């Protein structure tokens, strides 16, 4: 680097461009990245700094004024407001239900669909279709199908002699319903990531193991699964983060109800910030959510690293 710079300087003659090559390169580069960089400063870094301040204020709706209250909002969330822990519990249940189900289903589908056979394109297309569909549209249709009376799901259950519950009116069933419908909506994405990973595993490994007499399960357990570990980590992190961020799906299907049974963190933040205008409290909640997401990511990365050693 230093060598190039001095050579540029030496080469500069009277009448040559005022800027050295290196400075010009740098200016050009910054010109190229300037829209991204300026947007980043205004709509990301600024807000990120501001949210720390917001989280330590209390807003007066009438005068639109913020009063500094220190860590009051965090105390309120963590120690006083019973809603908060209820909401965290809901979010954790949602994640614990969604992530394993999503990954297990995505992996099974990918194993079934990673090799060409008659109909493979059809199946991939079908399982991926909900991913390109709007979450609101998906939630509208499922809400319609999950009605207690006259809903398509209960009608089908009746055919096999099951008397289905009023899904979205009972807290536990509603939670199960949003988890399962969300998995169906999003599983295609993870399936595709797994298929890509499976196709990059050389076939020789599995063939050699099969020749040595390993069963399908052994091949999967001893060869395929360990080779998929990096993909599984990425998928786990992304899916967990995604599950904590779920909003539109819940908004449309249950509105956080019944009896706050599906009130999850992202929805609670929206409610507090934009419906009740508890801006300071909502900002504190948003930061807590950020901390949870970061912690989960770190834990998963660390667990995986220990696993691999």
């Amino acid at each position, binding site marked *: 680097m230093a060598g190039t710079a001095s050579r540029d300087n030496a080469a500069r003659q009277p009448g040559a461009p005022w800027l050295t090559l290196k400075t010009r*390169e*740098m200016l*050009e*580069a*910054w010109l*190229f*990245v300037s*829209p*991204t960089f300026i*947007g*980043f400063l205004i*709509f*990301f870094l*600024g*807000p*990120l700094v*501001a*949210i720390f301040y*917001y989280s330590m204020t209390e807003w007066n709706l009438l005068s639109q004024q913020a009063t500094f209250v220190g860590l009051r909002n965090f105390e309120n969330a963590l120690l006083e407001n019973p809603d908060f822990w209820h909401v965290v519990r809901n979010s954790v249940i949602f994640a614990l239900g969604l992530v394993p189900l999503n990954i297990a289903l995505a992996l099974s*589908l990918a194993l*079934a669909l990673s090799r060409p*056979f008659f*109909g493979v394109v059809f199946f*991939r*297309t*079908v*399982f991926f*279709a*909900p991913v*390109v*569909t*709007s*979450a609101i*549209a*998906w939630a*509208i*249709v499922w809400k*319609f*199908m999950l009605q207690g009376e*006259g809903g*398509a799901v209960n*009608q089908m259950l009746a055919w096999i002699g099951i008397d289905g519950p009023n899904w979205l009116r009972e807290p536990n069933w509603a939670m199960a319903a949003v988890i399962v419908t969300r998995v169906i909506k999003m599983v295609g*994405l993870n399936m*595709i*990531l797994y*298929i890509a990973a499976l196709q990059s595993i050389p076939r020789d490994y599995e063939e050699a193991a099969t020749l040595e007499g390993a069963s399908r399960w052994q091949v999967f357990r001893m060869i395929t699964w360990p080779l998929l570990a990096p993909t599984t980590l990425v998928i786990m992190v992304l899916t967990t*983060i995604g599950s*904590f*961020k779920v*909003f*539109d799906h819940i908004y*449309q299907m249950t509105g956080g109800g019944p009896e706050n049974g599906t009130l999850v963190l*992202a929805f609670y933040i*929206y409610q507090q*910030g*934009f419906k009740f205008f508890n801006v300071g409290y909502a900002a504190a909640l*948003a*930061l807590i*959510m950020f901390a949870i*997401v970061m912690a989960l990511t770190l834990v998963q990365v660390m667990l995986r690293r220990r696993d691999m050693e």
Partner: protein
Amino acid sequence: MTPRRIETLYRICWTVALLLLAVPFVFPFLWMISGGFKSTTEIFGAPTLIPRVWRFENFAEVFAYQPFARQYFNSLYIAATVTVLTLFIASLAGYALARIRFAGAGLLMLFLVMALMVPEEVTIIPNFFLIRAMGLIDTHWPLILLPVFGPQGVVATFLMRQFFLALPRELEEAGKMDGLSRFGVWRKIALPMARPALAAVAIITFLHSWNLFLEPLIFLSSLDKFTLPLALSNFNDSYGLPLWNLQLAATSLAVVPILIIYLIAQRQIIESFALSGVKG
């Protein structure tokens, strides 16, 4: 049984299992379309897949209930604008990050990774006040600015950078020899070669904007400014209960064109998502 027949049997079992599993993925679309043609009485009666009476008036009523055509157009032009802007900005930045060694590049990359890690819920509250201070509440500006400069734009930048890194440099060097400026090299040589990456970015960006919900919900209040997802969730009677047949008809109108495009270009679309998923 011979191993061959076992294999065939195995295949058949798998296919049947997959077909059963496909039901909850396909059925909602069929049920949505069928519900869109039903009358209110049939909606609440015993459900059948094929409507007993096809009620085409639903689709006219959708447009009478809200300015649905206007809302449809809003979604289209916003998604198109976001896509074009993202392509331009992300390919510029991605190119510089891939090709030019400059002071601050490492720091910028670090910042961009950070932007990917932070959930949108964290920045949306300050952004709301920022947009309000700019006087842009109930306009389409936030729906364009926030996605272009938010995490979605960052994903696009990384995708473009990754693609440019994998391109051979020789052509660009030749272009430089021929006296093209840096911008000229980007515009005339790098961009045309980056078509596959641009297509992938365009697809995921368009769909992301088309399906965006939180931002329209927060920023928009006039019906004729709504975008589709917000409009869809708005088909309620005066008690706040859904007007199912209208809502399903409107949802069909919003979803079916996307599905048709998806069926035609499924390979390309799925690949685009795979690419962005691996990156993200």
